[in-house]
């Protein structure tokens, strides 16, 4: 009972394997409502797999995920969105041939009503709904993420960094309660990385969205996380506040094996 109130998202003993490879080996953790929860770990540790299990893209052999007390294990992938779970991907998964604006509009799919008849007629309610959506996107999302200049551009023509930002915008259009971000700052320069960190903080504080963040940039992770979970070879090896993680022996050893290098990498 206690646990149910304490955690918005609970992950219980998740096992996932590909052939002989154990990608996740009994991971248990929980995310509190309103926090920024980071997942770190070396390449191949199973971080992305964990998000894929939450999303129902992968079906773990064992274990449960509970979101606000509801078991996600039996839901279809498309049902996850309407619970308020949004996500961005390590390798951007945008609709490449559409404009930035249309991509973001797609994020709002679950919040809209028009169907195949009313949509084709485009009059009255449908028209008002489309206008309201456009206004919401312009004023809340495009403005926040500073992408006014590119709203009419076709996505595949944009540089990688901007595509990542558009993907974040699309996730925001889903008006999520919890946002799963898979390496949002990869491939970005210092300035862009700082922008992204600022956006994540804004989204967390102003919209009250819980964030699960996978990120290799330790500066960002240590700066903005409330708590951090460390995975290695599919197992959780540590969990706690940034300060604890920075000095945790297991983490230091797992991360690079070489203590002094690790120290500088973790920013201690």
């Amino acid at each position: 009972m206690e646990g149910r109130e304490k955690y918005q998202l609970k992950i219980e003993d998740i096992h996932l394997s590909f052939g002989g490879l154990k990608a996740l080996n009994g991971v248990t953790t929980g995310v509190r409502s309103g926090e920024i929860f980071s997942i770190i770990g070396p390449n191949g540790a199973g971080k992305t797999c964990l998000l894929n299990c939450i999303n129902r893209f992968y079906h773990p052999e064992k274990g449960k995920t509970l979101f606000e007390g509801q078991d996600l294990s039996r839901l279809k992938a498309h049902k996850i969105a309407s619970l308020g779970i949004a996500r961005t991907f390590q390798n951007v998964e945008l609709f490449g041939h559409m404009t930035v604006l249309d991509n973001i509009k797609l994020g709002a799919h679950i919040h809209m009503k028009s169907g195949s008849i009313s949509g084709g007629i485009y009059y009255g309610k449908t028209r008002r709904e489309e206008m309201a959506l456009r206004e919401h996107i312009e004023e809340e999302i495009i403005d926040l993420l500073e992408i006014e200049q590119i709203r009419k551009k076709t996505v595949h023509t944009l540089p990688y960094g901007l595509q990542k930002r558009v993907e974040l915008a699309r996730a925001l259009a889903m008006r999520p309660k919890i946002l799963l971000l898979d390496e949002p700052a990869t491939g970005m320069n210092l300035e862009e990385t700082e922008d992204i960190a600022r956006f994540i903080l804004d989204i967390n504080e102003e919209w009250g969205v819980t964030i699960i963040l996978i990120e290799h940039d330790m500066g960002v992770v240590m700066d903005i996380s409330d708590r951090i979970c460390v995975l290695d070879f599919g197992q959780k090896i540590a969990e706690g506040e940034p300060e604890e993680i920075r000095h945790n022996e297991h983490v230091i050893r797992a991360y690079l094996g070489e203590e002094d290098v690790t120290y500088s990498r973790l920013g201690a």
Partner: protein
Amino acid sequence: MRCGDFKDTYVRDEAIFQSVFVKVWLALFLVCLLIFPFLANEYVLYIVNLIGIAIIGAHGLNLLTGFTGQISLGHAAFIGVGAYTSAILITRVGIPFWWSVPMAGIMSAFVGVIIGIPSLRIKGLYLAIATIAAQFIFEYVFMTWESMTRGIRGINVPDPELFGFRFDTERKFYFITLFFVVVGTLYARNLIRTRVGRAFIAIRDRDLAAELMGINLFRYKLTSFAISSFYAGVAGSLWVSFMNIVTPEHFPLSLSIEYLAMVIVGGLGSVLGSIYGAIFMVLVPEILRFGTDFIKDIPAFQHIFAPLREVVFGALIVFFLIFEPRGLAELWRRMKNFFLLWPFSY
């Protein structure tokens, strides 16, 4: 003040016909379409009616294949189902043409949904093969279910009537075709810029991400099949009342392929593309027929030029696939841009 300005911009930005200039052109174009039948002869009007009916069918296939990414080789079967439904309703049940059209659409949509079910599991060429099954099943049904379809004898269908006015010439029928083409085009255009249409495109581009947005793939693929075959049914229904007869051999596999060629040549995923493609596929063979008829009169060329029409037609399609894979719609867009910017095109 600033806010108000912004809102006006969105409203204008979201409109299909954005400037006064475009609206005036469109109005002029519509007036031309209305005057046109009084200037053209019956032969030209016959061709134009066929083009109109093909446009409606092509819109349907383009929504399914071009926008949702589901290849279908069963489109002719859906057109046939619409044609027979309409013919049977008019001749056996005595329902007027006007009601038979939407009913034919609904019947085809229903059949389309059933044929579309495999699309949930299979994609691309495999789906194309699965939809061919529909083609063969329905050709067989049209042929052998004699008590309903009268088999190869076919069904004779009377001309449509409205308040005692008979649409008994190509010229009169033109207005029926025009009406359905305009409605069908506007519907398609609106659909693809709202929720359902965006979901179709999302499924085509990246179905995994579409699911993440909460799009139910099962439901939307079937919706796409339903809408697509609804168009096919309407096209079939218009076709029987225009031709006044329907027989099983009117809906062969080659017609399905022709429709696929239409949307590819016109431009997959473009509403205007369906229109260009339909015009191309109906008009070019006619023009080639004139050309070859002329040459055929020269006795020495007779044997060589008889099949020339098919060869040239096929070559033109291949040419498009190679040099303009995005179709006539894209070619037209680039030409327009060129002239709009001229003389600063480069």
